Structure formats: C-alpha cells, structure tokens
C-alpha cells in the first residue's frame, strides 16, 4: 500500500515518534504528567501496530480512524512540553487547583498545565483536551487505553508569570472551564430567552433583567423561538458566561479582579457582542459579595443548583495585611485564606502602599520595589502553605 494519503499518515507517525522521543527528557513536578506521557507512548504503539496490520486504508479511513489520534498525541505533548519543572508558576497553579477541585471533584481528574506566551494580556484557558470525553471514550473502546486525567492548559503572559496581582484573572478563566463542563450558562440562556419571548417574565423581574441584558427589550413577548445558533442566543450566552465567571472568581478573590477589569476596559458602560458592560459586571459582583438582591446572581444560582445542586458562595477568608508591613510571609491557616491572601495583596497595593513604603524605609518613589515585595510575600506565603500542607499529609 503506497498511496499519498497512506504515506502522509506514515509521515505523521514518524513525526509523533520523534516528538515522543524528545519528550522523554521532560522533568515534571507532578507524577501524573509522567504517567500521562507514558499513556501517549502506549497510544502511539497501538495506532502504529494497527496501521501496520492493515492491507488497505482509504483516505476516509485514515481521517476517521487514525489521524485524530496522532493529532491528540501532538496536542498533549505540546501541553506537557511547556509545563516542565523550570517553567511552572507553581504557587498560582496550586491555588487554582484548589478552586477547580471545589467544582470538579478532588480526585485529580484534571491536570493543570501552563504555557508562557508573549502577550501581556494573554491570560486564558485552553480546554481543547478537556472539553469533551468523546475522544477518550473512543481511545478506550478502540485500543483499551484509558487516560484517567485530562490536561487543562493555562496560558500566562511570560512577562507576568510571577505577578500574583494580575494572576487573579485566572480564577475568571477557570470559571469558563467549569461553565464549559457543566453548561450552566448555556442551559440558562435557553431558559431566559424562552421566558422573555413567551412573556413568562414580567414586572420588576423583567425590568431588572433588562438592566443586564438591554438588547432583549425588543424580544419581550415576541413568541418566537430563538435558535441556538442565532446571534442573539450566542450574545446572550456569552454575556451570561462572563457574569458567571466574574461571580465564580469573586467566590475566591472577592473584588480583586474588578479593579483590574475596570482599568483594562476603562470602566466601559456599554456592552459588546461578547461582553456585558464593565459597569454591569462590577455591579453584579458587588451585589453578590454584599449579599444584595441581584437578578443575575439569582438566575445563575438557580441554574447551578438545577445542574449541580450547589450554589455560588464566598469561598475565601479575609487575611490581615499586618505581616506585609513586617515584611514577613503570612501564615495561611486554611484553603479559604489561601485564596483570600490574593485579595489582601490587592488591598495593600491599592490602599496601603505608603505604609509598605515606610516599612521599607524608602520614599514611596519606587513602584518596582513595592511590586517585588508584594509579589514575593504573596509567593512565599502561598508556597509555605502548600509545603506545610503536603508535609502534614505525609508525616507519620
């Protein structure tokens, strides 16, 4: 058999073998990544053997049966390669792991890997290897190889990889991943649009809803079904997802990301097709944190409860900033404080720079020095907690 498509498949296999060979030198801090990489080698061997057994393969067979599995090996290696020991901002990843475990279970089904990118605004999650179980189910059924974990990649700006103030936005990005897994906001979008077009929401509730989704005004009582693929559905879903992620993040980091959001969006009071207005986003978080009545919080909580029997709740504990001014790491006593200390760092930066400056005996004229001190104290405080926690788990 020597068709062009078959020879391209052989090229793909050769490239994968070389990539796996190179990855053998990777050193990971997490044993699960090594195990995952070994599974990739098993998968490569299984695909290679099956392809070799075939006496004929059409182009369609190659695409439908094998190419995607080799693509998966490459994508996984891409994630693993950039997440080796010397590149990981370990402390923030551990914070996110705790938050992820609250929602996706503590069995370690998901491994956070990181990629440092050359874009100062480039905080994002790449869930492409964790969006759906379809491929994993296929690999298990076809080759008998089971991947017990899914890789979730966090992209971090290289320049801000150790910036614990800016990194709080990763909680928002984690929210997108959690929402993607449970489809909280996608389910809710259908519900809201049906209620609006069928006139099932009225009075004060409708007026409140239209504050946060003003473009729905012209659809009230229209009796038209809004298709899932329509622009209106997509925009509404996107806005709901942003509200959800802001709320999700604020469970852990309180109002920390509001400041950053207001700054980078210049506190926009208009919505875009992908994002609600910053003013509405900040108001929603403020209402949630102050336990004030808010229609967006209410409907999102209803959807979460229907799907997961849970609610949004404050999952952080306030940490005093005294240690910052003594220039020593704070002793974090529990996971709530682990998240809470990031908000403490923000409060020091926003309101107590002068006090910190006095502790350093400088003249409040060196923002880089203050920035380094705040980041170092946050990193050491978090790092100490993680080390102690691990020690307490293994000590006799």
């Amino acid at each position, binding site marked *: 058999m020597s068709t062009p498509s078959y020879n391209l498949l052989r090229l793909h296999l050769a490239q994968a073998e070389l990539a796996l060979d190179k990855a053998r030198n990777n050193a990971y801090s997490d044993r699960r990544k090594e195990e995952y990489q070994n599974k990739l080698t098993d998968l490569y061997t299984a695909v290679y053997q099956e392809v070799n057994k075939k006496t004929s393969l059409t182009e369609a067979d190659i695409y439908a049966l094998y190419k995607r599995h080799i693509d998966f090996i490459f994508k996984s290696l891409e994630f693993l390669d950039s997440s080796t020991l010397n590149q990981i901002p370990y402390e923030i990843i551990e914070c996110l792991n705790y938050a992820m475990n609250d929602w996706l279970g503590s069995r370690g089904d998901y491994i956070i890997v990181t990629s440092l990118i050359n874009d100062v605004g480039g905080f994002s999650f790449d*869930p*492409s290897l964790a969006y*759906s179980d379809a491929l994993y189910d296929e690999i298990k059924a076809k080759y008998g190889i089971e991947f017990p974990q899914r890789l979730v990649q966090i992209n971090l700006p290289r320049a801000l990889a150790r910036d614990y103030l800016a990194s709080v936005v990763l909680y928002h990005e984690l929210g*997108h991943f959690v929402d993607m*897994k449970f489809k909280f906001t996608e*389910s809710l979008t*259908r519900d809201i649009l049906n209620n609006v077009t069928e006139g099932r929401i009225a009075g004060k509730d409708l007026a409140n809803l239209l504050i946060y989704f003003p473009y729905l005004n012209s659809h009230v009582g229209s009796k038209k079904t809004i298709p*899932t*693929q329509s622009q209106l559905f997509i925009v509404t879903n996107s806005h709901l997802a942003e509200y959800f992620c802001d709320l999700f993040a604020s469970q852990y980091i309180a109002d920390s990301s509001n400041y950053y*959001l207001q700054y980078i969006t210049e506190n926009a009071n208009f919505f875009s097709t992908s994002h609600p207005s910053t003013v509405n986003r900040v108001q929603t978080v403020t209402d949630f944190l102050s336990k004030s009545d808010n229609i967006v919080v209410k409907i999102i909580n209803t959807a979460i409860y229907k799907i997961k029997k849970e609610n949004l709740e404050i999952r952080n504990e306030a940490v005093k900033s005294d240690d910052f001014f003594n220039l020593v790491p704070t002793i974090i006593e529990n996971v709530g404080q682990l998240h809470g200390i990031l908000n403490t760092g923000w409060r020091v930066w926003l309101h107590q720079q002068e006090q910190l400056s006095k502790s350093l005996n400088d003249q409040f004229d060196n923002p880089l020095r203050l920035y380094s001190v705040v980041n170092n104290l946050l990193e050491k405080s978090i790092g100490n907690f993680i080390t102690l926690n691990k020690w307490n788990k293994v000590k006799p």
Partner: protein
Amino acid sequence: MYHSHSYQDEAFDFFVTFLKNAIKGDVTYQQLVLPVITDAHLLATGEKDYFTINRDSYSVITFLVEADTPYFRQLNTNHLTTADYSQILQYANTQREAFLA
C-alpha cells in the same frame, strides 16, 4: 484576556465521525453515539430537559433536537438502524450551515 473559545465544532466533528463509522456497522462506534441519541430522544419527549441532559454532549443533543424534534420524539433508541444513523448524520451535517445562516 477574559475570552474563552468555542469547541462546539470539534464536538460535532467527533460525533459526525463516530456516526460515519456506526453506519459502516462498527459496533464500537454505535455504542459511542448511543448515549447522545438517547438523550436527544429524551429531550424531545420531555423526559429530560436542558438542565438534565448529558453535559458532555450538550451542544450536539440540543442541536439535533432543534433540527427535528418530532423525528427524535418518535425514534426507537432500543433498535437503531443504519437508516437512523444516516438520517441523524444528515441533521448533524447541517450544523455549520445553521451556524452561518
């Protein structure tokens, strides 16, 4: 920053590929598509709703039911035929067009 990507197309790609293999009689793939088709049937009959259908295949299930609710309502998921897989493939193949419509 503050953006996430849509991976719905990829979920559809998998489903379409699985269906094509199911049509060829591959039992492994017939078993892989069965839970999705079953939930589409249950959503169409009202036995499940948008909050209770399978989360992993959510986009595919909701799209299929929107494409032809009566079809999925009457579908016998205990005995799916090649004709059923082919019909469902036709619906799934319209996803990109529907998105761009």
